[in-house]
């Protein structure tokens, strides 16, 4: 028969091992936080525009400042065309306008964006586009300047 004195160390080891196992199990748990795919037209336009703006303005603080300064006036635009014309009117940002237009045309030609394609000139789609472009611009600037919109 095992004496009490002998039994205690074994019990302690088993106890410690079970605690360790519990801790390890807890460590392996990870909450569901991974990004999901973008479903809507606006979200996708924003993603493309963000990358375009960021790529064009990286290492170019003067142009970043220029774009930031223009954002309030861009907010007033009612259509994508108006916004692009404004952008093309600014010498240093002209190229950006053409690239953003390319992004939008690329996304628009996809079969799932049939509604946006057929109603392209409607004020609803145009408003949607303007806010998607502006969201992309702000996000890109936020990422470049490490601000709160940078995520």
């Amino acid at each position: 028969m095992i004496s009490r004195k002998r039994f205690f160390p074994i019990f302690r080891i088993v106890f410690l091992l079970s605690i360790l196992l519990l801790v390890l199990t807890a460590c392996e748990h990870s909450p569901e936080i991974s990004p999901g795919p973008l479903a809507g037209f606006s979200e996708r336009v924003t993603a493309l525009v963000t990358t375009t703006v960021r790529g064009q303005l990286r290492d170019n603080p003067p142009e970043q400042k220029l774009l930031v300064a223009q954002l309030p006036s861009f907010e007033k635009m009612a259509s994508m065309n108006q916004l692009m014309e404004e952008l093309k009117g600014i010498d240093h940002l002209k190229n950006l306008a053409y690239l953003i237009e390319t992004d939008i045309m690329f996304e628009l030609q996809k079969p799932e964006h049939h509604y946006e394609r057929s109603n392209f000139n409607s004020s609803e789609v145009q408003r949607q586009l303007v806010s998607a472009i502006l969201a992309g611009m702000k996000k890109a600037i936020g990422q470049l300047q490490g601000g709160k919109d940078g995520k």
Partner: protein
Amino acid sequence: MANKRALVLSGGGAKGAFTAGVVKYLMVELGLNFDLVVGTSTGALIAPLVASQDIANLIHFYENVEDRDILTDRPDLLAFLFSDALNDTKPLEKLIKKFFGDRRRYERLLQSSAEIFVTVVNMQTGEIEYGNQHQDPKPTLLKKILASACVPVMMPPVKIGKCQYVDGGVKEIAPFSKAIDEGATHIVSVILSPDSENREPIRKEFTSSMDILKRTLALLTDEIVDNDLKIATVYSEAIRYLDQIKANGKERLGLTDSQVRKLFTGLDNPFQGKRVVGITTIRPDEELMDSSLNFDPAKMREMVDKGYKKAKEEK
């Protein structure tokens, strides 16, 4: 023979963000389309999105994914002793299901005119196998995409049927041979490490066994990539050389077609049925990051921009 343009995407973990930038330039700005997309490891995650022309989601994926979305740590010692890998890939499995498993998104992949091939290595046979949207049922293809990204020891093998599968990069990091076998006439390849001339020596002493293991794996990886590219290039150069010999025989020696054919009769032609393939390679000028398993969104955004810029320069 019809032209067939292939995109060959190499492995490289988080460095796949560079590929995302390259692809954005090629497909959105240049308007290029591909008939064939062959990817290993991180390239296997990119291939379905390229085939579906879903560049917005490709960028979104690489700009937002973090370490915790790919792997969960298993404590080192216990993992070594009692399991098949140091990390668990459950988060990556979930991510793959989210991005590729959805019915509508998968249908787009099936309807795409671009054929995808993702490379995996069968641990039992030691052979390279491929996952394809038309040859494999959806659950198998999703498992192969996951397996293609599973670096052995770091991540567990994926079981399909009775076999275990791991990262295709164990044998072929830049899968040129599959693109050539599938009849590609022009290949655009994205390789995620600089060429040998631009590789910086590491000026530190490796003291821990883990550091030595990581450095050894990096050297092996570079060697495999160099060989993948070399084999593909040598193939085309050899075919060009043979064609030139035949042309010279006719022009300079006045040989007829049948005389030229006789010259080669009885010889085993290792290039039978193969054709010259134009290869354009886009790769970074310098090492993009130390560890390819470091999914840091800020660094990855920087790599997306680098890839975009590099592709533009190579145009």
